[in-house]
């Protein structure tokens, strides 16, 4: 650590106190995007592809935020794919069979009741697994491997394997699509609100540091951070607002609202897809939980040294059980997004999702040794994996080769992370 030898730009970046690993991840993501864009002859960095990418990433991203905490506590959850399938089937039956029998079809609260039931079941299943892991001391690998088989079997059992379709119209909005997006105006409002929140939180942090007379970031660094964050947010909004509804949807919409479609078509922007909004909301809440609450602090302390956490008076078993309950809740939410997107609940929904989620967490810098990992990193990891997959689809790469590439990237990411950690450890920072 000799600041005198550093390049001014490096010094400036350091003064922003940004996490270098997250920066590396963002850089890798941008490189992959640019590479696919060039290789596909300009197909990748288009509003349409990026919008689809955001929707496709959301289900895995939602679960990855929980998987980070599971892995940080030195556990693993292999059951979430099956749990997603099982809860998805139940939510399918609840909204397509049970609730219509009680209230008739297209009852306005069907979606909410269905979602609430699904989330509650997710918490209960997570609590059951968490209890066995934390209080009975069975390794999470075994318990959730059992869960993988049990919940997948249970998913079949719900309807003896029959697919449930179609789903409630309101519920389906959670899956995205033209109607399942919030449109241009609301997207801009969300974007502006996000920018205001970023600026306020930076200002608040600065004011509090001043109050305690701690060293402050240079004001230029603060402005730089705020500027970059707002530019990224508004840029993303501009992209999703540049993606128009397909002609068919526009025609249906025009007919329903008695609008005459002008010549050259009517431009209706998608805006942010609802599943993406859900995923971002989950990311914000989970980051808050991880960084700003006692629960989050204990999760990391347990990961760093379970014995020390116990000796410091932390009820480590209850914390671990809560982590698995949270994971169950997120698997249920992911299940809702998945079946809504498919407009059908099938008993194979979510097969292998647990592996994608674990891979996303690891690519995002979560260490399987425990104690290290961030929610934002895992979400970026989910986007990176999805980018690889959809980029290769655009290039016409065969599915087997796609799997080979994704697998190789996972291992390389884990290796790079190990190298980074060793060097950071040796440098003592």
């Amino acid at each position, binding site marked *: 650590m000799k600041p005198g030898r550093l390049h001014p730009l490096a010094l400036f970046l350091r003064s922003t106190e940004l996490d270098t690993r997250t920066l590396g991840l963002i850089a890798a993501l941008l490189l992959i995007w640019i590479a696919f864009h060039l290789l596909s002859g300009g197909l990748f960095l288009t509003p349409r592809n990026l919008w689809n990418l955001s929707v496709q990433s959301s289900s895995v991203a939602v679960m990855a935020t929980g998987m980070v905490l599971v892995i940080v506590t030195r556990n693993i959850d292999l059951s979430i794919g099956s749990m997603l399938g099982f809860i998805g089937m139940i939510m399918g039956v609840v909204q397509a069979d049970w609730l219509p029998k009680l209230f008739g079809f297209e009852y306005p609260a069907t979606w909410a009741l269905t979602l609430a039931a699904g989330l509650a079941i997710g918490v209960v299943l997570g609590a059951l697994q968490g209890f066995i892991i934390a209080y009975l001391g069975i390794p999470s690998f075994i318990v959730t491997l059992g869960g993988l088989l049990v919940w997948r079997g249970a998913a079949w059992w719900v309807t003896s394997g029959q697919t449930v379709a179609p789903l409630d119209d309101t519920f389906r909005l959670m899956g995205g699509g033209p109607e399942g997006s919030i449109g241009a105006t609301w997207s801009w409002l969300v974007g502006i609100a996000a920018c205001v929140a970023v600026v306020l939180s930076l200002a608040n942090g600065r004011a509090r540091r001043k109050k305690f007379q701690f060293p402050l970031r240079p004001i230029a660094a603060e402005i730089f951070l705020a500027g970059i964050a707002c530019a990224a947010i508004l840029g993303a909004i501009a992209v999703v607002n540049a993606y128009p509804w397909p002609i068919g949807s526009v025609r249906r919409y025009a007919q329903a609202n008695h609008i005459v479609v002008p010549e050259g078509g009517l431009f209706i922007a998608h805006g942010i897809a609802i599943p993406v909004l859900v995923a971002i909301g989950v990311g914000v809440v989970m980051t808050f939980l991880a960084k700003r609450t006692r629960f989050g602090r204990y999760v990391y302390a347990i990961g*760093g040294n379970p014995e020390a956490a116990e000796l*410091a008076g932390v009820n480590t078993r209850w914390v671990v059980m809560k982590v698995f309950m949270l994971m169950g809740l997120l698997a249920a939410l992911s299940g809702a997004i998945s079946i809504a997107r498919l407009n059908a609940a099938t008993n194979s929904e979510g097969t292998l999702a647990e592996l994608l989620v674990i891979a996303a967490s690891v690519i995002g810098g979560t260490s399987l040794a425990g104690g290290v990992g961030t929610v934002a990193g895992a979400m970026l990891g989910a986007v990176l994996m999805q980018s690889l997959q959809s980029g290769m689809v655009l290039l016409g790469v065969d599915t087997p080769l796609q799997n080979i590439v994704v697998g190789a990237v996972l291992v390389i990411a884990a290796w790079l992370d190990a190298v980074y950690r060793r060097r950071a450890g040796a440098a003592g920072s």
Partner: protein
Amino acid sequence: MDATDATRTPLVVLRDISVSFGGVRAVDQVSAELYEGEVLGIVGHNGAGKSTLVKVLSGACKRDGGTIAIRGEDANIDNPRDARRYGIETIYQTLALADNVDAAANIFLGRELKTRWGTLDDLAMEAQARSVMGRLNPHFARFKDPVKSLSGGQRQSVAIARAILFNARILIMDEPTAALGPQETAQVGELVRKLKAERIGIILISHDIHDLFDLADRICAMKNGRVVGTARVSDVSKDEVLGMIILGKCPPGATPGPGAMVLETR
């Protein structure tokens, strides 16, 4: 301390404490007392049961038998949270730090400060951590780094800071100077004297008999899980203490315990 010991209620009374691991009696019918403003040194070989004994008091280890009384009243200590409620703080031999979080997070682990919205008040915690670390280790500046990257001495200061920040009445120090250089060891000695002056009862486990003779008022020697003898440091010599540790031989200046070698029966 002097003559008042007999008349005052002890701060801590451990009576007939036993702990078994499998078939091994790690601690066997140990009784000991600690008074306010006193330093009780516990000595013995590795495996003599010192650490296990103090872990019973700090709630980290379940006892199979015996009672604990704090200020004359029976105390229920079944876990570390209970012990903290009785004002018992412990500096463990392993330091018991969560390596992946920073100094302030470790110091406040289990009793974090919160803002009025119920969120973690990291800045307030860092401010207090800075002030307590400033007293212990004025050169310490790495408040943002995970404690894994700190030196042995710095880590030890973090563990000590955690124990003294919360108005401990009873402080257990298990080999507190094991990772320290001579200068830092002297600082810990100074700290012990200062805390003693604040009427805190201190149990000090150490391998270093010279240190113990400097700091402790009484010494309790253990062998094979039993107390060989307890003595004021003024009543015994260093060689006699070594005799207790190695041979289990209780000198005339000490009160013999159940672990003292009894010549008649051999």
